[in-house]
């Protein structure tokens, strides 16, 4: 039970979540509670509704019933606050193929609170700084994923929502994602992730099996 929702503890919880797609019930009465520094894993086979659950969490889909709470308050009542506290790394990277990496990230900076991290150092960490002048369409799928990771690092938000973050990444890339998530959690961030493979991380992990 997540009690004592003091103003300082960041927390995300969901209760009695039920979701339909068309006539089909994807899941029923799912619940979870996530505190600062914890990783939430949604597990399940393909088509079990992991992606849909995450989309509904950020408000892209509507739950049939149930409520998502951010810091003890339903997200429906504080949409802007909630959206200002998260980045959503979707299956599609959501960046413009015609624009360069820098142009893309520069645009993103007008949408969300930005961290103090310097763009160059972030690109350096992700090992994509040499790709700076290229339009995104000339990058490989794995490199585009890394640009999406750069968007996450540049945003100053506590909640990371990642849908299958390991797709298109090699072993090294996967290790990088895990390292970044761990650092984020250590700083008091939260992360919810849908993954169909095992995730090995040295942090508190909560699992929801769909």
């Amino acid at each position: 039970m997540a009690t004592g929702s003091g103003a300082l503890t960041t927390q995300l919880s969901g209760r009695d979540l039920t979701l339909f797609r068309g006539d089909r019930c994807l899941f029923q009465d799912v619940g979870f509670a996530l505190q600062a520094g914890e990783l939430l894993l949604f597990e399940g086979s393909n088509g079990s509704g992991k992606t849909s659950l995450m989309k509904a969490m950020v408000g892209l889909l509507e739950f049939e019933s149930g409520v998502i709470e951010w810091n003890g308050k339903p997200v429906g009542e504080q949409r802007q606050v909630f959206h200002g506290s998260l980045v959503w790394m979707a299956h599609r990277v959501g960046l413009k193929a015609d624009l360069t990496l820098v142009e893309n990230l520069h645009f993103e900076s007008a949408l969300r609170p930005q961290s103090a991290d310097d763009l160059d150092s972030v690109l350096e960490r992700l090992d994509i700084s040499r790709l700076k002048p290229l339009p995104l369409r000339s990058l490989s799928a794995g490199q585009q994923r890394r640009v999406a990771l750069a968007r996450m690092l540049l945003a100053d938000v506590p909640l990371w929502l990642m849908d299958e973050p390991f797709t298109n990444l090699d072993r090294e890339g996967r290790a990088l994602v895990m390292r970044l998530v761990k650092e984020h959690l250590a700083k008091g961030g939260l992360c919810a992730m849908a993954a169909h493979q095992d995730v090995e991380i040295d942090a508190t992990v909560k699992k929801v099996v769909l």
Partner: protein
Amino acid sequence: MSAPQRDVPGMLDSLFAVARRDLLLAWKRPGDVLNPLFFFAMVCTLFPLAVGPSAEQLTFSGPGVLWVAALLAMLIALNSLFLSDFDDGSLEQLLVSPQPLPLLAIGKTAAHWLTSGLPLVLVSPIVAITYRMPGSVVVVLMLTLTLGTMSLSLLGSIGAALTVGLHRGTALLSLLILPLSMPVLIIGANTVSLAAGNETYSAGVWALAAYAVGALSLAPFATAAALRISNE
């Protein structure tokens, strides 16, 4: 988080950022801007070929032809308004951003108007002169087209948002938008006709301006709602 959370960037900043990004994209793909213009010029060429080149007929039908051609060209340009954002997932990113969606929709629509409506307004005098339109009427034509294409962009953004991601999108978009755009066409074309007949036309211009203001204050909300629905 250990450090206090930074503020969300200002709403207007995000509006301008969206507009700037779309203009940049248009700059990198000039074909998307030019195609509707060529279409406009071609439709205007078809009419004299079909109804005959006599000067009398051209001055008489000029305002109507130019307006219908402009309407159709706007319609062609509309299809791409949200399509690429929908396909590459950046629409989703806009939907989950902390910025008010109607404002982002205004930003996108403004960029769309600058790359489709404004070029039409700028090209229209050239076509109008070939239709033997006197200079004073050309000014009225450009004025009405400016106000009218703004309204069409705003109305069109609703239709584009409703049909984005549908398979039969293009034909459906015309079916939805043409009835909506009829008042603009009626007022716009007839105002130019009145001006060509040396009659008072100011009422039409005011009506178009009022329509544009009304569209600007209502359409973004409808567009935002439609985008959320279409992206489900």
